[in-house]
């Protein structure tokens, strides 16, 4: 035979997932939920030497249905790629708030679109919540569409989970060509707002 496959029986050793951070981003189809998760995951896994998985959930509809992204960031390898109890919830719509708020880890962090969501008594014990008018900021920058990148910047500013320069790189090669500058402005707007909110050097971190 010209070329055959060799028989393989390789060994995989079981691994412990170290410093695992679970993030769920929820909103409506069309709000850029998946891209927001993509930017965070790419920054961590391609530019910050960590591991990351991104799982997207959506319905058959193209726009307007519930949409969510699950991102895991870990130092070690990631086996189970699903979010069970998010350390950080990033929510962009009231529906997403209603759907996911119960899942937030006690002491976890909620980041939310403050013109659309008003946190209530459903917020778990000891959870911290920080809002940003991401859609309004995006409109002020010229395009409502970039609200997801405002949110990614806000996430970076508040949590410090990934360095801002890695997120900038991730934005640059994830957004459509010609929109890089607008998106980077959106990122910095959200980042600055987040930093200001939590105070420089005293980031919220993640639970």
């Amino acid at each position, binding site marked *: *035979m*010209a*070329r*055959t*496959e*060799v*028989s*393989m*029986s*390789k*060994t*995989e*050793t*079981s*691994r*412990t997932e170290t410093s695992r951070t679970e993030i769920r981003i929820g909103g409506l189809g069309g709000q850029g939920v998946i891209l927001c998760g*993509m930017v965070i*995951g*790419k920054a961590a*896994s*391609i530019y910050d030497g960590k*591991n*990351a*998985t*991104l*799982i*997207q*959930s*959506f*319905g*058959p509809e193209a726009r307007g249905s519930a949409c969510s992204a699950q991102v895991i960031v870990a130092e070690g390898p*990631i*086996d*189970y*790629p*699903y979010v069970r109890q998010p350390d950080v919830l990033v929510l962009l719509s009231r529906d997403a708030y209603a759907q996911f708020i119960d899942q937030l880890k006690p002491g976890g962090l909620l980041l939310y679109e403050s013109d659309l969501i008003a946190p209530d008594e459903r917020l778990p014990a000891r959870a911290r919540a920080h809002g940003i008018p991401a859609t309004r900021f995006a409109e002020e920058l010229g395009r409502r569409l970039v609200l997801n990148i405002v949110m990614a910047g806000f996430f970076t500013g508040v949590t410090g989970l990934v360095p801002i320069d890695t997120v900038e790189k*991730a934005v640059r090669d994830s957004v459509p060509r010609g929109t890089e500058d607008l998106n980077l402005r959106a990122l910095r707007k959200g980042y600055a707002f987040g930093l200001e909110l939590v105070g420089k050097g005293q980031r919220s971190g993640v639970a």
Partner: protein
Amino acid sequence: MQADPKGVLTGAHFLDGDQAACEGALAAGCRFVAGYPITPSTEVVERFAARIPLVGGVFIQMEDEIASSIAIQGAVWAGQKAMTVTSGPGLSLMMEHVGFAAMTETLCVFVDVQRAGPSTGLPTLPGQGDMMQVKWGSHGDYEPIALVPSSPQECFDLMIRAFNLAETFRAPVFFMMDEVVGHMTERVVIPGASAIEVAERRLTRKKPGEYRPFEANGDLVPDMVRSGEGYRIHVTGLTHDERGYRAMTAAAHGRLVERLSNKVRANRDRLVDVREDGVDGADVVVVSYGITSRVAARAVAEARERGVRAGHLRLVIAWPFPARRVREIAARAKAFVVPELNLGQMALEVERAAGGRAVVVPVPHAGGTVHEPAAILEKILEAKG
């Protein structure tokens, strides 16, 4: 042969499994895709359509899956490496031409990103319910090869192997992803073209007139020709002799169909590919594949934390099934636990191979999401007795 650098996107990327599978196909030298896009496989062809003008090749969005699955076979006989991409509802339609590929030894790759069925089922949600369909779906006897990646990186790596196996065995090769593996995004490292080994088409050295297109070599696999190079060939789904002419006798049929199966059966032990974690000495061995293997890995780790001697055997190639290895394990382990996103398909194969020497505990799930690791853990704890 080394991969053509034009098709190799060397570097570290954050890709979903569908996109990685597309890059694997391009790296393997696939230059023709015909498909009828369907969730959750759409991103494979979407990317192929975007990339192929830069690489040089053809993508055709066909009128349906039936046409797609035969267009690729035309491309193969014209000398190309080709694949079609679909999900369960499309795969059901393709079954006639899967048989045609088997019978005519047309070496194409069928990509199936599995969603929950039957019928149109849950378009955007995962299933693993097509495992037996690819084994038995087309009528008559043949031996398919099926690979089951569990990560975007494996979608890239194994896709290259899928094309290489197709070239080597001239049998239908199925690339069995599931919706989660297809839509999960993770780092994918694509090496340089010189580090990627691709199988070349095995072309005859015989002259036109001497060449018999279905005359097998010692390894039971006949050499091919490219259309337009002076050879007269006849390719038919009817039972045929070594010349490719129809031969309507039981003797000719036995000769042909037995060879079609034997070329894979004779190489079963070389084809088998499993990844093992703590299987030797385990009381309970979890057998899994695709996304379920990543969920199962969590359950196995938790079982060990509770003191259970648990092992994990992950299928990388589902067909041919690693029956010999499962039989060996069955002689020593108490039980197998088989989680899958169907109501028990590969579990039947584990049971067959175990032959009553170890208990087989399926962990069925109709699909739509993955198992809770706790559900698998519970069965491991039950099975250890």
